[in-house]
């Protein structure tokens, strides 16, 4: 551990973490779970969903989103202070009102004691909304993949995620990281024949056929990975099934011939 240690107290329990750790991770290190939507340790903190609120009681008093707050020496944190609990519950109540069809939100809310919402969907035409605007898809596409095919569009309650002009995004490489990281399953991707249809993004990407068996498996736009990452060359060259078989054959062929 290169960074110096920072010592804090979480719900009465002393915790020590490296400098630069976000408070949420320190809380987790203390064995306390907090609901989150927009946090992912592989991406820069975003602080949008406001579910991970905790109360700092000393040396100053503050209600903070723990996923985006860097730990400070000596702070005393209460995760179940009334204002923190209320903040989490109201956030979930509103998200439930926004996305009544989402089982993920319903479960998260239930765990915090929220079973219904006083508030309806902000835009009636989006009553089947599953997106909670956590931004993970946008951020993974931009920060981790670097394709930046999708982004936030508009502002306020009209804010949504989309491709430029809501048409096929040339920048999309069809990797599917967005669908994978989405906490509510709001992104629809379907492989059909030689195409990967990212329905939510009005985008279609060609799939590369396996030279061995002819099945379609890798998005064509990810071909650049072969040059960029040597270890990807194999993965890109054959479909998972054929790659497995070839690797197994190679192992078999390596075995010494005949009895010892």
């Amino acid at each position: 551990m290169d960074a110096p240690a920072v010592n804090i107290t979480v719900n009465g329990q002393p915790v020590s973490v490296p400098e630069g750790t976000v408070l949420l991770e320190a809380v987790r290190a203390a064995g306390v779970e907090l609901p989150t939507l927009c946090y992912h340790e592989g991406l820069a903190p975003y602080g949008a969903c406001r579910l991970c609120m905790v109360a700092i009681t000393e040396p100053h008093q503050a209600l903070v989103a723990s996923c985006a707050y860097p730990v400070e020496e000596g702070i005393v944190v209460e995760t179940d202070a009334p204002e923190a609990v209320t903040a989490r519950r109201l956030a979930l109540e509103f998200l439930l009102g926004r996305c009544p069809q989402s089982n993920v939100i319903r479960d998260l809310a239930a765990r915090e004691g929220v079973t219904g919402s006083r508030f309806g969907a902000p835009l009636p035409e989006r009553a089947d909304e599953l997106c909670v605007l956590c931004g993970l898809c946008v951020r993974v596409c931009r920060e981790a993949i670097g394709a930046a095919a999708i982004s936030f569009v508009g502002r306020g309650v009209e804010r949504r995620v989309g491709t430029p002009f809501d048409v096929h995004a040339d920048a999309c490489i069809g990797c599917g990281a967005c669908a994978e990281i989405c906490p509510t399953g709001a992104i629809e991707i379907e492989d059909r024949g030689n195409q990967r249809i990212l329905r939510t993004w009005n985008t279609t990407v060609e799939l590369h056929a396996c030279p061995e068996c002819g099945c379609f498996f890798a998005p064509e736009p990810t071909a650049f990975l072969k040059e960029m990452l040597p270890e990807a060359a194999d993965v890109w060259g054959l479909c998972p099934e054929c790659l497995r078989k070839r690797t197994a054959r190679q192992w078999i062929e390596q075995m010494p011939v005949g009895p010892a």
Partner: protein
Amino acid sequence: MPLIPQPAPPAGGALLARLHAINAEHGYLPEAELRLAADELGVPTSQVYSAASFYAAFTLEPRGRHTIQVCLGTACYIRGGDKLLEKLQATLGVGPGETTEDRAFTLETVYCLGSCSMSPVIRVDGDTYGRLRADRLPRILKKYRAAEGQGP
């Protein structure tokens, strides 16, 4: 850090300046211009689209020949700015953000033109009119139609 390497971002304010330039030339932000801007500035198209859709100064739809901005800032609201808006809506037959059928006027609302002592205020194509009463609006509209040669 990202898998696909990113070019260095353009200088601070460059994207905003480019959007303003496009807006000044075309009166709105056409798709082709935005895609070209992304290309030339070296930023993702999605980033340009985000900015274009975020700011109130920009619209992705073509505007009319004259843009009327009704100020709904606090001082203007207190002194009846909403009535100016209503009168204009009734006279022109369009709502905020919309353009008249003959493409003459686009009606917009704005949250403060900084002329609060002259409230209520509207701006038409950069001309500011203060201390307005709704009954003076038809005359102002007439001025712009007449300037086009459409007559009273």
